[in-house]
């Protein structure tokens, strides 16, 4: 197990390096940060002095190595726009994004798994067809459209929920449901198909033959065995939830990392974008690792050497 862990961790190093350099280069090729930090009509000498003061005059590779060196010690540099430590800017917003992503995930799991299980159990029936229809919608409707529609219906027409902001449970509801809706669909579909497989297995027939109640058969025997692919989906999707967060946070004025990222990209705030890319990549890689490790916990047949 330890061996496996070490090997997996070593593999992440080139992955993170690659991602960091790629994003760094892309961002730099697409524009000069001084354009966003200074008005267009300042004298060229001022612009040049500013560029030197900020270190933009150095070769790209030097800037990148400097960034990495500092990042290893936890110092991601100073935001060009906010003149504040980039690390702390991201850290301040991490709670908001984590809260939103968790709430969305909880919603998706709590709704998606039972829905999928019921659909499989009532294969071909009304519940199955309903779940399949909703899943199709959930996967087809893009986040930004769903978000705007939700605001119009619940905030403008019905006036039951606020249109945006963060602080109260009501404010969490719409963004979390918007962000989680696509995931509900995916989880329901995967659960459904895995359950269908599981329900056909011999051990289910055995369990029924033993005289177990139908509830025990479905929830304990079938669902638990159907769970491994579902868990993989949840683990991988958690990383992808961070994508959805970019759009959802903008639509709902949610003060999280996604919104910070978008604004930092527009203003070429390299240190902040770098920090976010780096931390997102780390999160993604480690979530994958965590999912792999969880397999062993859920399925005694799997072990790592």
């Amino acid at each position, binding site marked *: 197990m330890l061996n496996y862990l070490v090997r997996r961790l070593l593999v992440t190093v080139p992955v993170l390096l690659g991602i960091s350099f790629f994003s760094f280069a892309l961002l730099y090729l697409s524009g000069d940060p001084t354009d966003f930090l200074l008005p267009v009509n300042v004298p060229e000498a001022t612009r040049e002095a500013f560029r030197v003061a900020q270190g933009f005059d150095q070769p790209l590779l030097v800037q990148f190595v400097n960034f990495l060196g500092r990042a290893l010690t936890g110092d991601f540099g100073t935001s060009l726009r906010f003149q504040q430590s980039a690390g702390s800017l991201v850290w301040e917003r991490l709670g908001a994004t984590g*809260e939103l992503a968790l709430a969305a995930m909880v919603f998706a799991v709590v709704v998606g798994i039972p829905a999928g299980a019921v659909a499989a159990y009532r294969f071909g029936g009304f519940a199955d067809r309903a779940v399949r229809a909703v899943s199709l919608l959930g996967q087809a409707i893009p986040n930004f459209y769903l978000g705007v529609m939700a605001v119009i219906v619940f905030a403008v027409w019905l006036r039951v929920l606020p*249109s945006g902001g*963060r602080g109260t449970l009501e404010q*969490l509801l719409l963004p979390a449901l918007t962000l989680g809706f696509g995931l509900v669909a995916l989880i329901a579909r995967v659960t459904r198909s895995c359950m269908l497989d599981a329900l056909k297995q011999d051990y289910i027939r055995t369990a029924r033959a033993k005289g177990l109640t139908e509830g025990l058969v479905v929830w304990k025997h079938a669902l638990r065995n159907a769970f491994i692919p579902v868990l993989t989906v949840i683990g991988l999707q958690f990383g992808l939830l961070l994508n959805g967060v970019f759009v959802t946070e903008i639509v709902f004025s949610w003060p999280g990392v996604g919104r910070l990222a978008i604004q930092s990209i*527009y203003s070429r705030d390299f240190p902040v974008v770098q920090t976010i890319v780096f931390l997102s990549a780390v999160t993604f890689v480690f979530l994958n690792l965590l999912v792999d490790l969880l397999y062993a916990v859920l399925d005694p047949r799997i072990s790592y050497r």
Partner: protein
Amino acid sequence: MRRLVGLIGSVIVATLVVAQGAVDAQTVPRNRTLIIAQNFDPQSLWPNGTTASTNLNPAAAIVEPLFWIDPRTNKLEPVLAASFTMQSPTAYRVDLRRDVKFSNGEAMNADALVHTLKVFVDAALTPAYTIYSAPFDRVEKVGDFSVVIHTKTPYPAMALVLTQIYVIPPAYWARVGPAQYAQQPIGTGPYRLVEWVKDDRVVMDRNPAYWGAAPRGIERIIWKPVPDDTARAVGLETGEYDVAASLSAGAVPRLQSQRNLQLISVDSYRVFNMILSMLPKHQGPLLDKRVRIAINHAINSEAIVKNLFFGKAQLLQGQLLRKQQLGFDPEIKAYPYDPNRARALLREAGYPNGFDIDFKIPSGRYAQDREVCEAIAGMLAAVGIRAKIVALEGGEFLRQLRTQELGPLSFVGLAPPDDPHFQMSQYRSDWRYTFIQNAQLDALIDAGVKETDVAKRGAIYRQASRLLNAEAPVAPLFLGVDFYGMSSRVKGLLPTGDQRLFLYGVSLE
């Protein structure tokens, strides 16, 4: 399975706890709180730290300038200064109010102003303000509440510059430094910073010791960053915000029909025009003046304003200056929309079948920029000019502007400070993004910047405008328009053309 259920359960509980923990205790009632939605969170609350209006608006409620220009009257009104006099064309005396203290108890006096000016001219600290402070030479304290600013050359735009100087407390500044000052500013203004939760809200409460008349009925102001256009409009409609800035034109019809809301459209200082470069490095048909004038005739600005801006944007009159500006010439008229005349001019210039040309346009930099440019390309096509649209992302667009790569044909919206010099100097031969080189125009620009006689100065700029109109290196189209939505409870708030929201004279009913 049980473990999993336990895990999910604890996650739900944790989420609820986190969400509840973020609830802010509200002590000021909602009806005495003004909530303003802007598109961005401020990056700095030190006004002279940046020139972005989303920073300046909240910052100026805390830190005050020497003067402000009232958009209702277009007149210079004193704030911390009592008066200003030109002692000579290179010496400007500012007398301060004598009854003002910073909210930390420091005195607002000549020493504070001298210190402020020292920071203001320091290009390392205030790079965005160097175009204002470039002519400054030295500052002299001549009394406890009087300061003389000496300039290297006569500086007729001094009045405008004085509206850009925000007085800071020297002792506090010395103690905390610029970076922390920008986070926790102390000023003389009607409000004091209470809390700033990044990307979520800036909360400020009334300064009980304010020297002047504070906005009536407003105990607290909350500035909310709401980047999504639709979200700002919706939040205004549902009463979550009292003021929503920078609304999109698309929201206009819907908000206009709401009884408890007011929709305000403000002519912005942003001047939209076509670049028609006459620089030798931009070889091609546009080097022929007849072609440039033909393009002027081919574009129907009126139709653009009517269809894309609900008729609310102001058309430019064949010149870059607005009606309200010194140097506006009522005798100059825009080249009328006349496709036949355009075709005839193209024939005369040797292009009976028109020509192909790249048309570099900004995408997402200005409101509806793409739609406007597509309309223009269509109008050019109608007279035979096949303009191939090259859409550039905002950052790349600005870079190409600064390096003159946008030429020969492009569309820009420039918003220089509100003095004719800053507008005209963008066309001086040595300016980075000029698209004309003309010695006569240079001479006029150099004369205008030094002329302190208002009438003579106006005449100089009228002459410059006529020259630009005749040579046509630009096709002036229209002024930008900014849309604001406000609750009908908000009274007296009139935004300026540079998107500033001043609180002087504002009240909440």
